[in-house]
């Protein structure tokens, strides 16, 4: 899949959606569609921040595997996944998934698919920090996230293994 621009980054630093996606678009000259998803640490009465832990090495390779599945399944030109780790304050972006394609529906489906699998198949874990100070608990996996994978039919199994 070397002819597809793909960037995967696991980083602590915040980033600029415009700069990151502009780069992806430049490397996908035939793409008329760019779909991006941002996962944001949302405001909550009790929450001040999340801390993201990951499994170095496996996180990158799992994301690459998910992106490869998307590239195989849709006519996607390029893909970008930036997943932050460490302390992330309320309002900050945790993850960015962006996909370019000639076709807007392929771009929507590809980004949607990558996000669904990132949620439950990429080795990241979230711990809550409380507004009143101190650590809260680890965020539990949601059944709805697991269920979402079955929307993608046979691909759910392939990426699972």
């Amino acid at each position, binding site marked *: 899949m070397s002819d597809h621009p793909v960037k995967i980054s696991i980083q602590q630093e915040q980033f600029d959606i415009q700069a990151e996606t502009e780069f992806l678009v430049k490397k996908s000259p035939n793409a008329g569609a760019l779909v991006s998803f941002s996962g944001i640490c949302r405001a909550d009465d009790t929450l001040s921040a999340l801390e993201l832990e990951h499994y170095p090495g496996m996180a990158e390779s799992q994301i690459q595997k998910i992106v490869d599945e998307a590239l195989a399944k849709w006519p996607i030109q390029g893909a970008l996944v930036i997943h932050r780790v460490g302390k992330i304050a309320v309002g900050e972006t945790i993850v960015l998934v962006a996909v370019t394609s000639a076709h807007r529906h392929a771009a929507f489906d590809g980004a949607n698919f990558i*996000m669904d699998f990132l949620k439950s198949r990429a080795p990241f874990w979230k711990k809550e920090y409380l507004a009143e100070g101190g650590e809260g608990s680890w965020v539990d996996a949601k059944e709805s996230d697991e269920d979402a994978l079955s929307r993608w039919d046979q691909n759910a199994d392939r990426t699972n293994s």
Partner: protein
Amino acid sequence: MTKLLYFSWVRERIGLASEERDIPAEITSVEQFLNWLSQQGDQYENALTDAASLRVALDQTHVTADAPLNGAREIAIFPPMTGG
């Protein structure tokens, strides 16, 4: 020696992020491995008691409890992932 990695509350309960261990030759499946590791001390028993909520990766690939260890050099134990 096998490298063991722990993440999230598994890491916190065991009190280690990683360690190297000799796994006895008679331990051949993931299920047997989890059972054996849970007997290595209170913190292990405490971390591994709820097997249904644990996930295991062998050499960075997810496996199910009945998978053979197959001489994996790196075994990771963690709760269900919450990425994205």
